[in-house]
Protein backbone atom coordinates (compact mmCIF):
# COMPACT_ATOMS: atom_id res chain seq x y z
CA UNK A 1 0.00 0.00 0.00
CA UNK A 2 1.75 3.07 -1.27
CA UNK A 3 1.24 6.75 -0.47
CA UNK A 4 -1.03 7.09 -3.48
CA UNK A 5 -3.37 4.17 -2.85
CA UNK A 6 -7.08 4.76 -2.33
CA UNK A 7 -10.23 2.67 -2.11
CA UNK A 8 -13.19 2.89 -4.42
CA UNK A 9 -16.27 0.97 -3.29
CA UNK A 10 -14.19 -1.79 -1.75
CA UNK A 11 -11.74 -2.19 -4.62
CA UNK A 12 -8.24 -0.85 -4.00
CA UNK A 13 -6.62 1.48 -6.52
CA UNK A 14 -2.84 1.97 -6.69
CA UNK A 15 -3.53 5.65 -7.16
CA UNK A 16 -6.55 7.92 -7.59
CA UNK A 17 -5.96 8.65 -11.30
CA UNK A 18 -8.67 7.38 -13.67
CA UNK A 19 -8.93 8.45 -17.31
CA UNK A 20 -12.54 9.49 -17.96
CA UNK A 21 -14.99 7.88 -20.31
CA UNK A 22 -14.93 9.04 -23.90
CA UNK A 23 -11.38 10.31 -23.77
CA UNK A 24 -9.47 7.05 -23.45
CA UNK A 25 -11.28 4.70 -25.86
CA UNK A 26 -10.87 1.12 -24.63
CA UNK A 27 -7.35 1.80 -23.50
CA UNK A 28 -5.37 0.06 -26.21
CA UNK A 29 -4.54 3.23 -28.18
CA UNK A 30 -2.93 4.66 -25.04
CA UNK A 31 -1.24 1.35 -24.27
CA UNK A 32 0.90 2.03 -27.36
CA UNK A 33 2.11 5.20 -25.61
CA UNK A 34 2.79 4.05 -22.04
CA UNK A 35 2.05 1.14 -19.74
CA UNK A 36 -1.52 1.91 -18.75
CA UNK A 37 -1.30 -0.55 -15.87
CA UNK A 38 0.19 2.33 -13.86
CA UNK A 39 -3.29 3.90 -13.73
CA UNK A 40 -5.69 3.45 -10.83
CA UNK A 41 -8.13 2.19 -13.44
CA UNK A 42 -9.91 3.79 -16.39
CA UNK A 43 -13.48 4.29 -17.52
CA UNK A 44 -14.07 3.05 -21.03
CA UNK A 45 -16.11 4.73 -23.78
CA UNK A 46 -19.83 5.09 -23.01
CA UNK A 47 -21.64 1.95 -24.09
CA UNK A 48 -25.22 1.71 -25.36
CA UNK A 49 -27.37 -1.27 -26.35
CA UNK A 50 -27.20 -0.70 -30.10
CA UNK A 51 -24.19 0.50 -32.08
CA UNK A 52 -24.26 4.29 -32.54
CA UNK A 53 -22.43 6.38 -35.09
CA UNK A 54 -23.16 9.49 -33.09
CA UNK A 55 -23.83 13.01 -34.32
CA UNK A 56 -23.09 14.66 -37.65
CA UNK A 57 -19.89 16.64 -38.28
CA UNK A 58 -18.54 18.95 -36.96
CA UNK A 59 -18.54 17.49 -33.47
CA UNK A 60 -15.70 19.45 -31.87
CA UNK A 61 -15.18 23.13 -31.12
CA UNK A 62 -12.60 25.09 -29.18
CA UNK A 63 -13.56 27.45 -26.35
CA UNK A 64 -11.50 29.61 -23.96
CA UNK A 65 -9.77 27.08 -21.68
CA UNK A 66 -11.73 24.13 -22.94
CA UNK A 67 -13.50 22.35 -25.76
CA UNK A 68 -17.01 21.39 -26.79
CA UNK A 69 -17.89 17.92 -27.99
CA UNK A 70 -21.06 16.61 -29.51
CA UNK A 71 -19.75 13.15 -30.33
CA UNK A 72 -23.14 11.73 -29.42
CA UNK A 73 -22.04 8.51 -27.73
CA UNK A 74 -20.46 6.88 -30.75
CA UNK A 75 -19.80 3.24 -29.77
CA UNK A 76 -20.08 -0.19 -31.33
CA UNK A 77 -22.88 -1.35 -28.98
CA UNK A 78 -22.60 -3.57 -25.94
CA UNK A 79 -22.36 -6.88 -27.82
CA UNK A 80 -19.43 -5.73 -29.91
CA UNK A 81 -17.83 -4.14 -26.84
CA UNK A 82 -17.94 -7.52 -25.09
CA UNK A 83 -16.90 -9.63 -28.05
CA UNK A 84 -14.30 -7.34 -29.56
CA UNK A 85 -13.18 -4.43 -27.37
CA UNK A 86 -12.88 -6.10 -23.97
CA UNK A 87 -10.58 -8.90 -25.24
CA UNK A 88 -8.27 -6.24 -26.72
CA UNK A 89 -8.46 -4.24 -23.50
CA UNK A 90 -7.60 -7.33 -21.45
CA UNK A 91 -4.35 -7.77 -23.35
CA UNK A 92 -2.99 -4.42 -22.25
CA UNK A 93 -4.72 -3.75 -18.94
CA UNK A 94 -4.71 -6.19 -16.03
CA UNK A 95 -6.78 -4.44 -13.38
CA UNK A 96 -10.50 -4.07 -12.85
CA UNK A 97 -11.85 -1.57 -15.37
CA UNK A 98 -14.77 0.82 -15.07
CA UNK A 99 -17.59 0.22 -17.54
CA UNK A 100 -19.36 3.43 -18.58
CA UNK A 101 -22.99 2.85 -19.56
CA UNK A 102 -25.44 5.16 -21.30
CA UNK A 103 -29.06 4.75 -22.23
CA UNK A 104 -32.14 6.45 -23.56
CA UNK A 105 -34.60 4.33 -21.54
CA UNK A 106 -34.55 2.43 -18.27
CA UNK A 107 -34.64 -0.81 -20.26
CA UNK A 108 -31.56 0.12 -22.20
CA UNK A 109 -29.64 0.86 -18.99
CA UNK A 110 -30.62 -2.47 -17.41
CA UNK A 111 -29.96 -4.51 -20.55
CA UNK A 112 -26.47 -3.06 -20.97
CA UNK A 113 -25.61 -3.28 -17.27
CA UNK A 114 -26.84 -6.88 -17.02
CA UNK A 115 -24.56 -7.87 -19.89
CA UNK A 116 -21.52 -6.01 -18.58
CA UNK A 117 -22.17 -7.42 -15.10
CA UNK A 118 -21.08 -10.83 -16.44
CA UNK A 119 -17.69 -9.52 -17.57
CA UNK A 120 -15.05 -10.47 -15.07
CA UNK A 121 -12.76 -7.53 -15.74
CA UNK A 122 -15.47 -4.98 -15.11
CA UNK A 123 -14.93 -3.71 -11.58
CA UNK A 124 -17.49 -0.93 -11.44
CA UNK A 125 -20.43 0.20 -13.53
CA UNK A 126 -20.41 3.93 -14.11
CA UNK A 127 -23.89 4.96 -15.18
CA UNK A 128 -24.02 8.15 -17.21
CA UNK A 129 -27.44 9.73 -16.75
CA UNK A 130 -26.97 12.84 -18.84
CA UNK A 131 -28.75 11.41 -21.90
CA UNK A 132 -32.33 12.45 -22.63
CA UNK A 133 -35.03 9.96 -21.66
CA UNK A 134 -36.67 9.18 -24.98
CA UNK A 135 -39.57 7.41 -23.29
CA UNK A 136 -40.01 10.09 -20.66
CA UNK A 137 -40.36 13.32 -22.58
CA UNK A 138 -36.76 13.88 -23.61
CA UNK A 139 -35.61 15.52 -20.36
CA UNK A 140 -32.28 14.15 -19.27
CA UNK A 141 -32.43 11.40 -16.62
CA UNK A 142 -29.80 13.35 -14.73
CA UNK A 143 -31.80 16.55 -14.28
CA UNK A 144 -34.60 15.07 -12.18
CA UNK A 145 -34.06 13.36 -8.80
CA UNK A 146 -36.95 10.91 -9.29
CA UNK A 147 -35.71 9.76 -12.69
CA UNK A 148 -32.13 9.53 -11.46
CA UNK A 149 -33.33 7.35 -8.58
CA UNK A 150 -35.32 5.17 -10.95
CA UNK A 151 -32.28 4.44 -13.12
CA UNK A 152 -30.20 3.71 -10.02
CA UNK A 153 -32.72 1.22 -8.62
CA UNK A 154 -33.19 -0.51 -11.93
CA UNK A 155 -29.47 -0.91 -12.49
CA UNK A 156 -28.80 -2.06 -8.93
CA UNK A 157 -31.36 -4.84 -9.48
CA UNK A 158 -29.38 -6.39 -12.34
CA UNK A 159 -25.82 -6.25 -11.01
CA UNK A 160 -23.78 -7.13 -7.97
CA UNK A 161 -20.92 -4.84 -8.99
CA UNK A 162 -20.61 -1.42 -7.41
CA UNK A 163 -22.78 1.11 -9.26
CA UNK A 164 -21.43 4.65 -9.65
CA UNK A 165 -23.95 7.21 -10.88
CA UNK A 166 -22.37 9.87 -13.11
CA UNK A 167 -24.13 13.21 -12.75
CA UNK A 168 -24.67 16.07 -15.14
CA UNK A 169 -23.81 19.63 -13.98
CA UNK A 170 -26.70 21.16 -15.96
CA UNK A 171 -28.96 21.34 -12.92
CA UNK A 172 -30.18 23.83 -10.35
CA UNK A 173 -29.61 21.55 -7.38
CA UNK A 174 -26.90 18.91 -7.76
CA UNK A 175 -27.23 17.77 -4.14
CA UNK A 176 -30.84 16.66 -4.56
CA UNK A 177 -29.87 14.46 -7.53
CA UNK A 178 -26.90 12.95 -5.69
CA UNK A 179 -28.98 12.21 -2.61
CA UNK A 180 -31.71 10.62 -4.70
CA UNK A 181 -29.10 8.29 -6.20
CA UNK A 182 -27.64 7.49 -2.80
CA UNK A 183 -31.06 6.75 -1.35
CA UNK A 184 -31.82 4.52 -4.33
CA UNK A 185 -28.78 2.39 -3.54
CA UNK A 186 -25.91 3.89 -5.55
CA UNK A 187 -22.48 2.80 -4.32
CA UNK A 188 -20.77 5.94 -5.51
CA UNK A 189 -21.25 9.20 -7.41
CA UNK A 190 -19.06 10.61 -10.13
CA UNK A 191 -19.31 14.19 -11.30
CA UNK A 192 -19.23 16.26 -13.38
CA UNK A 193 -20.13 15.36 -16.91
CA UNK A 194 -19.86 18.15 -19.48
CA UNK A 195 -21.63 21.52 -19.24
CA UNK A 196 -24.09 22.22 -22.06
CA UNK A 197 -22.70 25.06 -24.21
CA UNK A 198 -22.60 26.45 -27.74
CA UNK A 199 -20.36 28.28 -30.18
CA UNK A 200 -21.49 30.04 -33.33
CA UNK A 201 -19.70 30.13 -36.66
CA UNK A 202 -19.56 33.81 -37.62
CA UNK A 203 -19.17 33.05 -41.31
CA UNK A 204 -22.10 30.66 -41.49
CA UNK A 205 -24.22 32.53 -38.89
CA UNK A 206 -25.19 29.15 -37.45
CA UNK A 207 -24.11 27.01 -34.50
CA UNK A 208 -20.65 25.64 -35.13
CA UNK A 209 -21.51 22.09 -34.08
CA UNK A 210 -23.90 20.21 -36.35
CA UNK A 211 -25.78 19.23 -33.20
CA UNK A 212 -26.23 22.86 -32.14
CA UNK A 213 -25.14 22.48 -28.53
CA UNK A 214 -22.18 20.51 -27.17
CA UNK A 215 -20.66 19.62 -23.82
CA UNK A 216 -17.91 21.79 -22.36
CA UNK A 217 -14.93 20.03 -20.80
CA UNK A 218 -11.40 21.08 -19.90
CA UNK A 219 -9.85 23.60 -17.51
CA UNK A 220 -12.72 26.08 -17.88
CA UNK A 221 -15.09 23.82 -15.88
CA UNK A 222 -12.64 22.99 -13.07
CA UNK A 223 -14.05 25.52 -10.56
CA UNK A 224 -17.60 24.35 -11.33
CA UNK A 225 -16.59 20.75 -10.69
CA UNK A 226 -14.91 21.71 -7.42
CA UNK A 227 -18.07 23.48 -6.22
CA UNK A 228 -20.34 20.57 -7.11
CA UNK A 229 -18.05 17.89 -5.68
CA UNK A 230 -17.78 19.92 -2.48
CA UNK A 231 -21.56 20.29 -2.16
CA UNK A 232 -22.23 16.64 -2.94
CA UNK A 233 -19.46 15.23 -0.72
CA UNK A 234 -20.83 17.27 2.14
CA UNK A 235 -24.23 15.68 1.77
CA UNK A 236 -23.69 12.03 0.87
CA UNK A 237 -21.87 9.19 2.61
CA UNK A 238 -20.93 7.15 -0.46
CA UNK A 239 -17.63 7.88 -2.21
CA UNK A 240 -17.46 10.65 -4.78
CA UNK A 241 -15.27 10.58 -7.90
CA UNK A 242 -14.34 14.13 -8.84
CA UNK A 243 -13.76 15.19 -12.42
CA UNK A 244 -13.94 18.18 -14.69
CA UNK A 245 -10.97 20.11 -15.99
CA UNK A 246 -8.23 18.35 -14.05
CA UNK A 247 -4.85 18.74 -15.71
CA UNK A 248 -2.20 18.73 -12.96
CA UNK A 249 -1.22 17.06 -9.71
CA UNK A 250 -2.26 20.24 -7.87
CA UNK A 251 -5.73 19.99 -9.45
CA UNK A 252 -5.96 16.39 -8.18
CA UNK A 253 -5.22 17.48 -4.61
CA UNK A 254 -7.73 20.32 -4.86
CA UNK A 255 -10.44 17.96 -6.11
CA UNK A 256 -9.73 15.46 -3.35
CA UNK A 257 -9.77 18.16 -0.67
CA UNK A 258 -13.17 19.16 -2.05
CA UNK A 259 -14.34 15.67 -1.18
CA UNK A 260 -13.33 13.28 -3.96
CA UNK A 261 -12.06 9.79 -3.08
CA UNK A 262 -10.39 9.64 -6.47
CA UNK A 263 -10.49 11.60 -9.70
CA UNK A 264 -11.08 11.15 -13.39
CA UNK A 265 -9.25 13.01 -16.11
CA UNK A 266 -10.99 13.60 -19.42
CA UNK A 267 -10.24 16.21 -22.05
CA UNK A 268 -6.67 16.68 -20.84
CA UNK A 269 -5.85 13.23 -22.30
CA UNK A 270 -6.80 14.53 -25.71
CA UNK A 271 -4.44 17.47 -25.78
CA UNK A 272 -1.67 15.78 -23.80
CA UNK A 273 -1.81 12.00 -24.21
CA UNK A 274 0.76 11.46 -21.44
CA UNK A 275 -1.02 13.60 -18.84
CA UNK A 276 -2.14 10.73 -16.57
CA UNK A 277 1.30 9.17 -16.54
CA UNK A 278 2.85 12.56 -15.76
CA UNK A 279 0.39 13.37 -12.97
CA UNK A 280 1.06 10.02 -11.29
CA UNK A 281 4.78 10.79 -11.54
CA UNK A 282 4.37 14.32 -10.17
CA UNK A 283 2.04 13.54 -7.26
CA UNK A 284 4.57 12.48 -4.60
CA UNK A 285 6.64 15.66 -4.91
CA UNK A 286 3.58 17.89 -4.90
CA UNK A 287 2.22 16.01 -1.88
CA UNK A 288 5.53 16.64 -0.11
CA UNK A 289 5.15 20.34 -0.82
CA UNK A 290 1.83 20.39 1.01
CA UNK A 291 2.95 17.98 3.75
CA UNK A 292 0.63 15.20 2.64
CA UNK A 293 1.83 11.74 3.64
CA UNK A 294 -0.95 9.54 2.24
CA UNK A 295 -3.20 10.92 -0.43
CA UNK A 296 -6.31 9.21 0.87
CA UNK A 297 -6.11 11.30 4.04
CA UNK A 298 -6.93 14.52 2.21
CA UNK A 299 -10.31 13.45 0.85
CA UNK A 300 -12.79 16.04 2.06
CA UNK A 301 -10.10 18.01 3.88
CA UNK A 302 -11.69 21.31 2.88
CA UNK A 303 -15.21 20.39 3.99
CA UNK A 304 -16.22 22.25 7.06
Amino acid at each position, binding site marked *: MGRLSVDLCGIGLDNPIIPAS*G*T*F*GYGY*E*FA*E*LYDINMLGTFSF*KGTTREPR*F*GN*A*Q*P*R*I*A*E*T*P*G*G*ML*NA*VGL*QNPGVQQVISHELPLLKKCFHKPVMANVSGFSIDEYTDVCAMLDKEEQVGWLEVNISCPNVHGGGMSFGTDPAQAAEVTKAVKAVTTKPVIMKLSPNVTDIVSIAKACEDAGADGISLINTLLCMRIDLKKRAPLLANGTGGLS*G*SAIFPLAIRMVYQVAKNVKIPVIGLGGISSAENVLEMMMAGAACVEIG*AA*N*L*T*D*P*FICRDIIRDLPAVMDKYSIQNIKDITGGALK
Partner: protein
Amino acid sequence: MKQSLFEIMENTPLTRDVYRMKLRGDTGDITRPGQFVNIRIAGLYLRRPVSVCDVEGDILTLIYKAVGEGTRKMSGMTAGETLDLLTGLGNGYDLSRAGDAPLLLGGGVGVPPLYLLAKELIRAGKTPRVILGFNTESEVFYENEFRALGCDVMVTTVDGTYGTKGFVTGTINDKPYTFFYTCGPEPMLKAVYKTSKTSGQMSFERRMGCGFGACMGCSCKTITGSKRICREGPVMDKEDILWED
Protein backbone atom coordinates in the same frame (compact mmCIF):
# COMPACT_ATOMS: atom_id res chain seq x y z
CA MET B 1 2.95 8.55 -32.38
CA LYS B 2 5.45 10.64 -30.45
CA GLN B 3 5.14 13.79 -28.38
CA SER B 4 8.23 15.95 -28.49
CA LEU B 5 9.58 19.47 -28.73
CA PHE B 6 10.67 20.89 -32.07
CA GLU B 7 12.73 24.01 -32.55
CA ILE B 8 11.63 26.49 -35.19
CA MET B 9 14.44 27.00 -37.72
CA GLU B 10 12.56 29.20 -40.15
CA ASN B 11 9.07 30.67 -40.53
CA THR B 12 8.62 32.60 -43.77
CA PRO B 13 5.65 33.74 -45.81
CA LEU B 14 5.21 32.12 -49.22
CA THR B 15 2.20 34.26 -50.11
CA ARG B 16 0.23 36.90 -48.23
CA ASP B 17 -1.11 34.42 -45.67
CA VAL B 18 0.57 31.08 -46.39
CA TYR B 19 3.72 30.37 -44.39
CA ARG B 20 6.43 27.74 -44.48
CA MET B 21 7.81 26.64 -41.16
CA LYS B 22 10.89 24.45 -40.82
CA LEU B 23 11.41 22.72 -37.51
CA ARG B 24 14.14 20.55 -36.05
CA GLY B 25 13.25 17.61 -33.86
CA ASP B 26 12.56 13.90 -33.59
CA THR B 27 10.93 12.96 -36.89
CA GLY B 28 11.31 9.23 -36.25
CA ASP B 29 7.60 8.51 -36.19
CA ILE B 30 6.85 10.13 -39.53
CA THR B 31 6.77 7.21 -41.92
CA ARG B 32 4.56 8.16 -44.87
CA PRO B 33 3.59 11.18 -46.95
CA GLY B 34 0.08 12.36 -46.11
CA GLN B 35 0.57 12.01 -42.37
CA PHE B 36 0.11 15.04 -40.14
CA VAL B 37 1.37 16.55 -36.90
CA ASN B 38 -0.73 18.13 -34.14
CA ILE B 39 0.63 21.36 -32.71
CA ARG B 40 0.14 22.78 -29.24
CA ILE B 41 -0.18 26.57 -29.31
CA ALA B 42 0.09 28.52 -26.05
CA GLY B 43 -3.23 29.97 -24.93
CA LEU B 44 -5.36 27.60 -27.02
CA TYR B 45 -6.92 24.45 -25.68
CA LEU B 46 -6.89 22.16 -28.71
CA ARG B 47 -3.88 21.35 -30.83
CA ARG B 48 -3.87 22.34 -34.51
CA PRO B 49 -3.40 19.63 -37.16
CA VAL B 50 -1.05 20.38 -40.09
CA SER B 51 0.13 17.99 -42.81
CA VAL B 52 3.74 17.01 -43.20
CA CYS B 53 5.04 18.77 -46.29
CA ASP B 54 8.56 17.39 -46.14
CA VAL B 55 10.99 15.57 -43.87
CA GLU B 56 14.74 15.49 -44.34
CA GLY B 57 16.62 13.91 -41.46
CA ASP B 58 15.50 15.81 -38.39
CA ILE B 59 14.08 18.75 -40.34
CA LEU B 60 10.32 18.85 -40.72
CA THR B 61 8.64 21.27 -43.14
CA LEU B 62 5.06 22.45 -42.69
CA ILE B 63 3.10 24.83 -44.88
CA TYR B 64 0.08 26.48 -43.33
CA LYS B 65 -2.37 29.23 -44.02
CA ALA B 66 -3.15 31.80 -41.34
CA VAL B 67 -6.93 31.51 -41.13
CA GLY B 68 -7.81 31.78 -37.44
CA GLU B 69 -6.43 32.35 -33.98
CA GLY B 70 -4.05 29.39 -33.91
CA THR B 71 -2.50 29.72 -37.33
CA ARG B 72 -2.24 33.50 -36.87
CA LYS B 73 -0.28 32.90 -33.66
CA MET B 74 1.96 30.46 -35.55
CA SER B 75 2.64 33.07 -38.22
CA GLY B 76 4.09 35.36 -35.54
CA MET B 77 6.59 32.82 -34.21
CA THR B 78 10.27 33.18 -34.84
CA ALA B 79 13.34 30.97 -35.21
CA GLY B 80 14.54 29.64 -31.88
CA GLU B 81 11.09 29.21 -30.32
CA THR B 82 10.00 25.65 -29.59
CA LEU B 83 6.72 23.91 -30.34
CA ASP B 84 5.21 20.81 -28.72
CA LEU B 85 4.20 18.42 -31.52
CA LEU B 86 2.49 15.08 -31.76
CA THR B 87 4.07 13.41 -34.77
CA GLY B 88 3.36 10.35 -36.87
CA LEU B 89 -0.40 10.88 -36.96
CA GLY B 90 -2.69 9.44 -39.60
CA ASN B 91 -2.32 6.69 -42.16
CA GLY B 92 -0.73 8.59 -45.05
CA TYR B 93 -0.83 7.81 -48.77
CA ASP B 94 -0.24 4.29 -50.03
CA LEU B 95 2.60 4.52 -52.54
CA SER B 96 2.23 0.92 -53.66
CA ARG B 97 -0.92 1.71 -55.57
CA ALA B 98 0.59 4.46 -57.71
CA GLY B 99 1.11 2.49 -60.91
CA ASP B 100 3.37 3.88 -63.63
CA ALA B 101 1.72 7.26 -64.12
CA PRO B 102 0.41 8.68 -60.88
CA LEU B 103 -1.46 11.97 -60.91
CA LEU B 104 -1.28 14.40 -57.96
CA LEU B 105 -4.00 17.01 -57.52
CA GLY B 106 -3.58 19.71 -54.89
CA GLY B 107 -5.79 22.65 -54.04
CA GLY B 108 -4.61 25.59 -51.89
CA VAL B 109 -3.19 24.37 -48.59
CA GLY B 110 -3.95 20.86 -49.81
CA VAL B 111 -0.77 21.18 -51.88
CA PRO B 112 1.81 20.67 -49.07
CA PRO B 113 1.36 16.92 -48.33
CA LEU B 114 1.71 16.17 -52.03
CA TYR B 115 5.27 17.48 -51.98
CA LEU B 116 6.66 14.67 -49.84
CA LEU B 117 4.48 12.25 -51.80
CA ALA B 118 5.96 13.46 -55.09
CA LYS B 119 9.46 13.16 -53.65
CA GLU B 120 8.87 9.57 -52.57
CA LEU B 121 7.27 8.62 -55.90
CA ILE B 122 10.28 10.01 -57.74
CA ARG B 123 12.56 8.11 -55.38
CA ALA B 124 10.55 5.01 -56.40
CA GLY B 125 11.35 5.79 -60.04
CA LYS B 126 8.07 7.36 -61.11
CA THR B 127 7.42 10.77 -62.58
CA PRO B 128 4.17 12.08 -61.21
CA ARG B 129 2.09 14.57 -63.07
CA VAL B 130 1.08 17.32 -60.67
CA ILE B 131 -1.81 19.77 -61.00
CA LEU B 132 -1.83 22.57 -58.44
CA GLY B 133 -4.97 24.66 -58.13
CA PHE B 134 -5.26 28.13 -56.60
CA ASN B 135 -7.76 30.97 -56.67
CA THR B 136 -5.50 33.58 -58.16
CA GLU B 137 -1.90 34.34 -59.12
CA SER B 138 -0.92 35.86 -55.77
CA GLU B 139 -1.85 32.67 -53.95
CA VAL B 140 0.33 30.33 -56.02
CA PHE B 141 3.18 28.60 -54.17
CA TYR B 142 5.51 25.62 -54.58
CA GLU B 143 5.21 25.32 -58.37
CA ASN B 144 8.98 25.58 -58.72
CA GLU B 145 9.66 23.22 -55.85
CA PHE B 146 7.62 20.48 -57.55
CA ARG B 147 9.36 21.21 -60.86
CA ALA B 148 12.74 20.99 -59.15
CA LEU B 149 11.84 17.46 -58.04
CA GLY B 150 11.36 16.58 -61.69
CA CYS B 151 7.56 16.47 -61.76
CA ASP B 152 5.41 17.40 -64.73
CA VAL B 153 3.72 20.44 -63.14
CA MET B 154 0.66 22.40 -64.22
CA VAL B 155 -0.97 25.26 -62.32
CA THR B 156 -4.59 26.30 -62.57
CA THR B 157 -6.16 29.46 -61.15
CA VAL B 158 -9.86 30.01 -60.83
CA ASP B 159 -9.63 33.53 -62.22
CA GLY B 160 -7.10 32.69 -64.91
CA THR B 161 -4.52 35.19 -63.65
CA TYR B 162 -1.86 32.46 -63.76
CA GLY B 163 -1.50 29.13 -65.56
CA THR B 164 -4.63 27.56 -66.94
CA LYS B 165 -7.93 29.15 -66.04
CA GLY B 166 -10.34 26.97 -64.10
CA PHE B 167 -10.30 24.17 -61.55
CA VAL B 168 -7.83 21.29 -61.31
CA THR B 169 -10.56 18.99 -62.55
CA GLY B 170 -10.75 20.92 -65.80
CA THR B 171 -7.49 19.36 -66.99
CA ILE B 172 -7.50 16.16 -64.97
CA ASN B 173 -8.24 13.89 -67.93
CA ASP B 174 -6.01 15.65 -70.47
CA LYS B 175 -3.42 12.89 -70.18
CA PRO B 176 -3.81 9.27 -69.04
CA TYR B 177 -2.90 8.30 -65.45
CA THR B 178 -2.84 5.07 -63.47
CA PHE B 179 -3.92 6.34 -60.03
CA PHE B 180 -4.57 9.71 -58.43
CA TYR B 181 -3.67 11.24 -55.08
CA THR B 182 -5.40 14.39 -53.96
CA CYS B 183 -5.71 16.85 -51.09
CA GLY B 184 -7.68 20.07 -50.96
CA PRO B 185 -10.96 21.63 -49.91
CA GLU B 186 -13.93 19.26 -49.83
CA PRO B 187 -15.73 20.70 -52.89
CA MET B 188 -12.57 20.02 -54.88
CA LEU B 189 -12.35 16.46 -53.54
CA LYS B 190 -15.93 15.87 -54.61
CA ALA B 191 -15.22 17.19 -58.08
CA VAL B 192 -12.14 14.98 -58.36
CA TYR B 193 -14.20 12.02 -57.17
CA LYS B 194 -16.68 12.61 -59.98
CA THR B 195 -14.31 13.48 -62.82
CA SER B 196 -11.49 11.04 -62.17
CA LYS B 197 -11.32 7.95 -64.38
CA THR B 198 -9.15 5.73 -62.14
CA SER B 199 -8.99 4.69 -58.54
CA GLY B 200 -7.29 7.08 -56.15
CA GLN B 201 -6.78 8.35 -52.62
CA MET B 202 -8.05 11.61 -51.12
CA SER B 203 -7.05 13.34 -47.90
CA PHE B 204 -9.78 14.86 -45.68
CA GLU B 205 -9.97 17.48 -42.95
CA ARG B 206 -12.14 17.37 -39.85
CA ARG B 207 -12.23 19.38 -36.63
CA MET B 208 -10.25 17.24 -34.23
CA GLY B 209 -10.32 16.75 -30.49
CA CYS B 210 -7.19 14.64 -30.19
CA GLY B 211 -5.76 13.68 -33.58
CA PHE B 212 -4.77 10.20 -32.45
CA GLY B 213 -7.95 8.17 -32.20
CA ALA B 214 -9.12 8.71 -28.64
CA CYS B 215 -12.17 10.98 -28.85
CA MET B 216 -14.29 9.99 -31.87
CA GLY B 217 -14.49 13.68 -32.69
CA CYS B 218 -13.48 13.22 -36.32
CA SER B 219 -15.51 10.17 -37.32
CA CYS B 220 -17.02 9.85 -40.75
CA LYS B 221 -19.17 7.22 -42.36
CA THR B 222 -17.62 5.19 -45.16
CA ILE B 223 -18.75 2.27 -47.30
CA THR B 224 -16.92 -0.09 -44.96
CA GLY B 225 -18.19 1.49 -41.74
CA SER B 226 -17.31 4.35 -39.43
CA LYS B 227 -13.74 5.61 -39.62
CA ARG B 228 -11.71 8.18 -37.73
CA ILE B 229 -10.20 10.77 -40.06
CA CYS B 230 -7.26 11.11 -37.67
CA ARG B 231 -6.43 7.41 -37.53
CA GLU B 232 -7.96 5.37 -40.35
CA GLY B 233 -7.57 8.64 -42.37
CA PRO B 234 -6.92 11.37 -43.27
CA VAL B 235 -6.29 9.50 -46.52
CA MET B 236 -9.27 7.50 -47.77
CA ASP B 237 -9.63 5.23 -50.78
CA LYS B 238 -11.97 6.58 -53.42
CA GLU B 239 -13.96 3.33 -53.28
CA ASP B 240 -14.57 3.72 -49.57
CA ILE B 241 -15.99 7.22 -49.60
CA LEU B 242 -19.59 7.95 -48.68
CA TRP B 243 -20.47 11.62 -49.26
CA GLU B 244 -22.67 12.69 -46.42
CA ASP B 245 -24.68 15.40 -48.21
